């Protein structure tokens, strides 16, 4: 579906100068109908103009992407709105369209519908090298024939910056990522983490309006990943660059994002601050994708639900019904021994495995009553409980009988 475009500026035959003017005066002008050399001129004028306005905000409106030969939409009326200086993480499993969204934003993919605005200007028709964005890829993106310093200088060289000036800027960027002493090294002489830091410096050197990170950490080992992730966030906060970060790693997303957009089937299911996303998931997909969750049977009136005899408040948008699934986080369940428990609420369960996670303990249990097995389509109803290690009843072992009670914390019913 194409969004209504301003057809007043369709200067197919108009001169380049007129085209340029059209973009200066009309913020909703698009590049549709502009051909050949005019594209470059018009795009430059357009970007200069939006840079003056402060640039950096992103709107992706009803974007549709269909890969050639595919019948499924990789992006299906995809909408995303990012404020200047914000760091948004697109999170999702493989094939959910998160990388496609990023690549469409960068201009590396043609989109079949919708439009992309940066800094209030339509960049849908702007070629990738004129979008003033910079991208960090998963790996192997450094130019192997150049040193680290020359790599960082590349974007400036393309922009015609003088040799001394670009050397100075490049060294600053390398210092920012802590690699000033590696400036003369070639790609092959650096570790994976160092290479990604050079790639980051290279992207930041051109002072991009938007920084795009396409799974930049997934090829690194765990320790380096955490270090670099924190470094990226620190640098992003200090430079204030609008950043879109794509990852499949929820921990990474939770750690760095201002907001996380959880993607599924070419759409954003929910976009919210990490804490909101975790505590108030909008859909079952989001609840199960971020963190662990238990599907427990309950009865709901839309505002409250009864689970294992305990009343729980519900998140807005929850389903109503006598037999719904209520999604309860493992830390929102209490575990007690039957002989120390005298309340009527709660359900008996058998301990299967106890996982010690340092300060926390996670206990996998199976509900004893066969009533719930019917509800769970014949499968045993498994429930995971998480509690601080010092609250674990002493001597609890596999096979023991326990009682599980939900805590009155808001949950989602569906």
């Amino acid at each position: 579906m194409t969004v209504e475009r301003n057809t007043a500026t369709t200067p197919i035959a108009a001169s380049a100068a007129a085209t340029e003017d059209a973009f200066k005066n009309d913020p909703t002008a698009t590049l549709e109908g502009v051909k050949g050399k005019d594209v470059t001129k018009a795009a430059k004028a357009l970007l200069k103009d939006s840079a003056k306005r402060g640039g950096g905000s992103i709107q992706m409106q009803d974007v549709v992407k269909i890969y050639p030969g595919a019948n499924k939409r990789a992006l299906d009326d995809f909408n995303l709105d990012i404020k200047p200086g914000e760091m948004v993480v697109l999170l999702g499993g493989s094939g959910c369209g998160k990388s496609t969204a990023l690549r469409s934003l960068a201009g590396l993919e043609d989109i079949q519908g919708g439009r992309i605005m940066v800094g209030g200007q339509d960049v849908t028709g702007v070629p990738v090298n004129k979008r003033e964005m910079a991208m960090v890829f998963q790996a192997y993106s450094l130019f192997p024939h150049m040193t680290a310093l020359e790599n960082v200088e590349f974007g400036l060289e393309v922009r015609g910056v003088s040799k001394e000036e670009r050397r100075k800027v490049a060294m600053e960027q390398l210092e920012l990522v802590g690699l000033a002493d590696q400036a003369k090294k070639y790609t092959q002489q650096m570790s994976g983490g160092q290479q990604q830091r050079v790639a980051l410096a290279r992207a930041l050197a051109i002072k991009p309006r938007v920084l795009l990170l396409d799974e930049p950490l997934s090829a690194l080992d765990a320790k380096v990943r955490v270090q670099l992730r924190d470094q990226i966030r620190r640098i992003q906060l200090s430079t204030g660059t609008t950043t879109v970060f794509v990852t499949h790693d929820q921990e990474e997303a939770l750690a760095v994002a201002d907001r996380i957009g959880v993607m599924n089937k070419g759409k954003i299911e929910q976009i919210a601050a990490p804490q909101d996303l975790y505590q108030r998931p909008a859909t079952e997909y989001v609840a199960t994708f971020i963190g662990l969750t238990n599907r427990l049977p309950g009865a709901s009136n839309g505002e409250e639900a009864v689970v294992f005899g305990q009343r729980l408040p519900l998140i807005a948008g929850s389903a109503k019904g006598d037999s719904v699934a209520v999604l309860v986080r493992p830390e929102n369940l209490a575990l007690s021994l039957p002989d120390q428990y005298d309340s009527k609420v709660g359900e008996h369960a058998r301990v299967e495995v106890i996982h010690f996670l340092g300060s926390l303990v996670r206990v996998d249990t199976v509900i004893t009553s066969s009533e719930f097995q019917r509800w769970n389509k014949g499968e045993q109803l498994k429930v995971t409980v998480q509690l601080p290690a010092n609250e674990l009843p002493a001597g609890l072992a596999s096979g023991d009988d326990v009682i599980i009670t939900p805590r009155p914390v808001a949950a989602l019913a569906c």
Partner: protein
Amino acid sequence: MNETSTTSETTAVAAAASAVKPPQLRAARVRKQSIIKFVILFVTLAFLFVPLLAMLIFTLRHPLSGRWSAAPWIAIFTGNGESLGADLTVLWQGLGTSLALSVVTVVLMLLLMVPTMVIVHIRSKALERAIEWVATLPLTIPAIVLVVGLGPIYRWLSADVLNTNPIWLCFAYVILVMPFAFRAIAVGLNSIDVKTLVEASRSLGASWPKVFFRVIIPNLWQSILSASFISIAVVLGEYTVASLLGRMNLQVALYQLGQSNSQISTAMSLLALLFGVVLLVALDLISDAMRKSKEGK
């Protein structure tokens, strides 16, 4: 009591085992194989070098009189074969043509192959396979069959479009060197992540020409060099096409000269061979040096 005896027995066995070295089966096999390797290497080298040695002796020893002299070599290096009754102008002409042909062929080949292969590599894997198949065809089609097809085209080229100058053999030669050039460049393209490098440089603001000349070509430098050197070697050694199309090049000249003075012809063949070897060794040394400078060893 029983227990202690068993433990002492075990220790005794262990001690014995550590004293007697276990049979070194692998080492024995490696020793045996190294002898076989040496024999094979020697036989192969002999097979390759005996004809060369024979050629060298042939140039130095007159086949009829059995007299030893360096006259053919002197004739080549002084450029005067009259004392031996041979006219060397054909040889110089052929050599000049072949050298010019190798340069023109390399330039044409690079202009044709490099951009095509880069674009296809980025855009379409299916098309890349098709091009690989087409580029390999000249290897499977015998030169003589190729000439049957090229004959009418060259007749038309020399009569109506261009002229009979042997330099126009370059078109046929571009086809002949294609399989070798394709392989060399494909190796280079596969050794770097072209797509990511292109996308990275595009997103940093580089135009397509900039991407091509600043990013892709410098990374393909080694492959381009090796494609060029192999092409030169092929062009310098080409006989069939030139001869059948009635054009003069080095090999045709050598053959003609061989009719009147086979010693000079053989000496010149040796020199051409030597030139080819020097070319390939230089290629190896240059690419090695380039790699080492980048790895910082």
